[in-house]
């Protein structure tokens, strides 16, 4: 944790640091106030504990606030006049939460204000002694008292008094658990421009105060900031200024009620007109919270709530829509599981199934056009080049099939099952095999050009740039090779790389069984960043503008900022997300082991809709003309409205 006293201390660049107290213990001020100790040291001077010697028979303690005024003589006179005018106003105040003013005077370059000494602890000091959060009821009780004192100050005639410095350290808790407001802003006019760079901000002040505006609603903001600090234990002076809306109370302290959080959010609006119009309205809001908790409010509202509830039940939309679930446009049934992704070309959907068949299905109606049988399951996805489709099979072969007729053009044998997906570039099909090689096969003849060896089965779909091919293997090694098969660089992850690399803006993004997502510079292989998820990443990344999207076996779909390598949002499903996301028109689509296809808003990770299939989904969705095509382990290929 940060040490608050250190942060709030200003560090002057020009060598100016806050000096020591100017009065020593035992000093006698005005032949009357005997200094007994220092209560605090501030930017303007110190606050002392003193004994008033006019009462020789009783020990009357006072707090003496010292204001050191080092302005030039003309300015000094003006400042002293301002001080005396404000001291007069304070001396007239009469409220139990405001300390009494006994005297004020000026001596040379120092002015002094003598006020009631309050035995107790300020709320900041109190908060720092606690291991747990302060109970909500206690904070609301103090807040109600603070509203009362603000109402009193803001109602002052002829001019409202603006406190200007509401914060836990200016609120004392006396022996009776009552609030006392200390340190009125009397010294603030003395503050001239700060010199040099300083660390730490006021933290509680409203934004408009930095434009020189101070009104009653500014005190309301500062009270909101104070309540936020008391409830969350997050010191706003060490957080980015005005970041309360990014740190809602319940995020730090879930025990706080939604209602109180809403009241505090209203107090903390940047725009003064959107806060409570006055301390009275704020107090009413807090009191109604308290009533709600004691049950009074519930009883009052019960008759009114009933008809409203009944009306909404009548108007309620049908159940499937309410749960966010949609129905498919068509369903095409295969004889075994669908694990790979479909390919859509000229109105036809092509997909491989574990029933050994490669299917061509009419995209509009979901009618079978042809099927091509291999001698093994088809776990991968097809690739297309000039009306020829390429797909790998567990029969160890890469099959080249006519898109029109479904007739075989050639097959290419590897030494192991082919569970990878092909990539076509520069007249070659590049395909990995469980024989631990990446094969480069002539696209027309089906003859081998070369093969590059890896330290494990190659099951990803390689990525291709102008001059390089990128692929990982189950051994955890990642390779960048040129079109001649010569290696340019290597990278090693801690576990296998099943995820297909995504080449985007000069970087390669790839997930690993080790739970990380790696960003590697395509040209050099430098690891720019890595992003940690909680379980294996088998999913492959999709990109849009400055974000990449990828799933993890920790059940989440992640959006990662490609510049910072940090999460922008995550969307949690009820099963592993091994399916690869796809992006279409500000929506991210992905499947999950929980059996659902999810459509998630790209901007915030909020659910748009979901579709529930009959079994886990590991296949990755493809979106064409606003239709989502995806296979499921329930043997079905689905077409859904995007």
């Amino acid at each position, binding site marked *: *944790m*940060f*040490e608050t006293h*250190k*942060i709030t201390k200003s*560090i*002057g*660049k*020009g*060598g*100016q*640091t806050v000096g020591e107290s100017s009065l020593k213990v035992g000093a006698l001020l005005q032949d009357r106030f005997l200094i007994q100790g220092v209560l605090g040291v501030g930017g303007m001077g110190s606050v002392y504990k003193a004994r008033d010697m006019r009462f020789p028979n009783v020990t009357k303690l006072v707090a003496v606030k010292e204001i050191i005024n080092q302005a030039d003589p003309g300015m000094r006179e003006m400042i002293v006049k301002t001080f005396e005018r404000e001291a007069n106003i304070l001396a007239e105040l009469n409220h139990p939460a405001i300390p009494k003013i006994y005297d004020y005077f000026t001596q040379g370059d120092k002015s002094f204000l003598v006020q009631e000494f309050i035995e107790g602890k300020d709320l900041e000091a109190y908060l720092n002694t606690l291991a747990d959060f302060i109970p909500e009821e206690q904070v609301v009780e103090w807040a109600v008292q603070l509203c009362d004192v603000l109402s009193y100050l803001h109602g002052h005639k002829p001019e409202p008094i603006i406190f200007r410095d509401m914060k836990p350290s200016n609120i004392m808790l006396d022996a009776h658990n009552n609030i006392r407001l200390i340190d009125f802003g009397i010294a603030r006019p003395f503050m001239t*421009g*700060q010199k*040099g*760079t*300083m*660390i*730490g*901000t006021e933290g509680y002040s409203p*934004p*408009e105060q*930095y*434009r020189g505006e101070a009104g009653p609603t500014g005190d309301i903001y500062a009270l909101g900031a104070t309540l936020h600090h008391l409830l969350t234990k997050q010191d706003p002076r*060490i*957080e*980015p*200024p*005005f*970041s309360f809306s990014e740190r809602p109370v319940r995020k730090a302290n879930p025990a706080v009620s939604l209602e109180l959080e809403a009241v505090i959010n209203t107090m903390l609006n*940047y725009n003064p007109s959107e806060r409570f119009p006055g301390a009275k309205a704020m107090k009413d809001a807090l009191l109604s919270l308290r009533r709600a908790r004691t049950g009074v409010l519930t009883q009052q509202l019960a008759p009114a709530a009933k008809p409203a509830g009944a009306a909404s039940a009548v108007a309620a939309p049908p159940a499937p829509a309410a749960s966010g679930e949609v129905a498919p446009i068509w369903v095409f049934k295969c004889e075994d599981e669908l694990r790979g992704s479909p390919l859509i070309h000229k109105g036809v959907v092509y997909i491989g199934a574990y029933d050994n068949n490669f299917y061509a299905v009419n995209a509009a109606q979901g009618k079978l056009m042809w099927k091509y049988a291999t001698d093994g399951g088809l776990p991968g996805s097809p690739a297309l080049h000039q009306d020829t489709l390429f797909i790998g099979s567990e029969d160890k072969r890469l099959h080249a099939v006519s898109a029109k007729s479904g007739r075989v053009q050639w097959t290419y044998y590897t030494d192991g099952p082919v569970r990878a997906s092909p990539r076509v570039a520069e007249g070659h099909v590049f395909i990995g095999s469980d024989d631990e090689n990446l094969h480069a096969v002539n696209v027309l003849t089906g003859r081998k050009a070369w093969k590059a060896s890896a330290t494990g089965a190659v099951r990803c779909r390689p990525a291709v740039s102008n001059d390089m091919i990128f692929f990982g293997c189950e051994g955890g*090694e*990642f390779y960048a090779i040129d079109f001649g098969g010569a*290696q*340019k*660089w*290597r*990278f*090693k992850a801690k576990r296998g790389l099943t995820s297909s690399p995504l080449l985007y*803006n*000069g970087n390669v993004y790839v997930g690993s069984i080790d739970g990380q997502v*790696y*960003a*590697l*510079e395509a*040209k*050099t*292989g*430098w*690891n*720019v*960043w*890595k992003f940690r998820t909680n379980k294996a990443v088998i999913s492959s990344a999709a990109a849009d503008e400055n974000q990449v999207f990828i799933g993890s076996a920790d059940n989440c779909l992640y959006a990662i900022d*490609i*510049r*910072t*390598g940090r999460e922008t949002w995550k969307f949690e499903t009820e099963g592993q997300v091994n399916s690869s996301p796809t992006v279409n028109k500000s929506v991210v689509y992905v499947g999950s082991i929980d059996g659902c296809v999810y459509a998630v808003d790209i901007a915030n990770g909020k659910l748009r809709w979901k579709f529930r299939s009959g079994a886990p989904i590991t296949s990755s969705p493809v979106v064409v003309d606003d239709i989502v095509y995806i296979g499921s382990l329930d043997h079905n290929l689905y077409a859904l409205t995007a």
Partner: protein
Amino acid sequence: MLNSILEKLFGKKKAEAPAPVVPPPRDPDATIPLSPQLAAQLPPDAIKALSDLGSSKRMRIGIAQDVGRVRSHNEDVLLVFTGELAGLETMPSFGLFVVADGMGGHSLGERASSLAARTVARVTLEQILPSLLADPQLEAERPALQEIMEQAMTAANAAVVNSVPEGGTTLTCALLIGEQLILSHVGDSRAYIITDDTFEQATRDHSLVQRLQELGQITAAEALVHPQRSVLYRAVGQGEGLEVDVVSRRLPSGASLLLCSDGLWGLVPDDKILRTVQQASNPQTACEALVSAANAAGGSDNITAVMVQVPS
């Protein structure tokens, strides 16, 4: 053949003169001198490679620093390390650039900024140099660059918290490997990316006025003259658990990266910085001109400028 050009220009003590004091002028296009004997042994294309290395194919660096016209101490620090490899094997051009602006009286500021710059460079170089000089075909263990930069910043923070507890500093670091730029940053020293037609501030100040601007409470012009324009909410030396901004970017070919302290950007407006950079014949004259411009505008703070231009 390895030619590694290592520069360490660190915490230069400046004379307290009002005129800008800049490092001795160097010819930024200087090639590595070849003895006639060596030149005779080298095949013609090797000589060409070396002369390329010395001109447009190499990153060009400029640095300038001045105490300014008001302050008696220089609390700014700049630090530059660069590396090149030419020959049979190549290595992406390497550069580490650091600007830090210290705060705290009684020489605490300059101690904090020096210590932070030194620590961040040491931790970064210790981890990156072995990978940089390894055979890329054999070396597969590659540390994550952003993670290294974050660790280095954290180490710098811990060093300042331990050794200069009353001081603090901004810290802006740029790690350049080929076109890959990693920026790590705390405080209000800035990095700008400048091309022929674009001028972009690549770091976000951790200052009160920056937040006020983001909330639409004040304008950029008001921020420059705001009485609390120097109030930071994040700095090195503030305590444990420092949050660091780390981003990776790709520098377009021919682009320049400028790192500077607020003594420059606080006094010289963006359009003037852009014009000065565009008019300068090389990064060194650009940095000198920028420092002069800040002094001409009052020189109210220490001024530091580091510029690197990548080959076009």
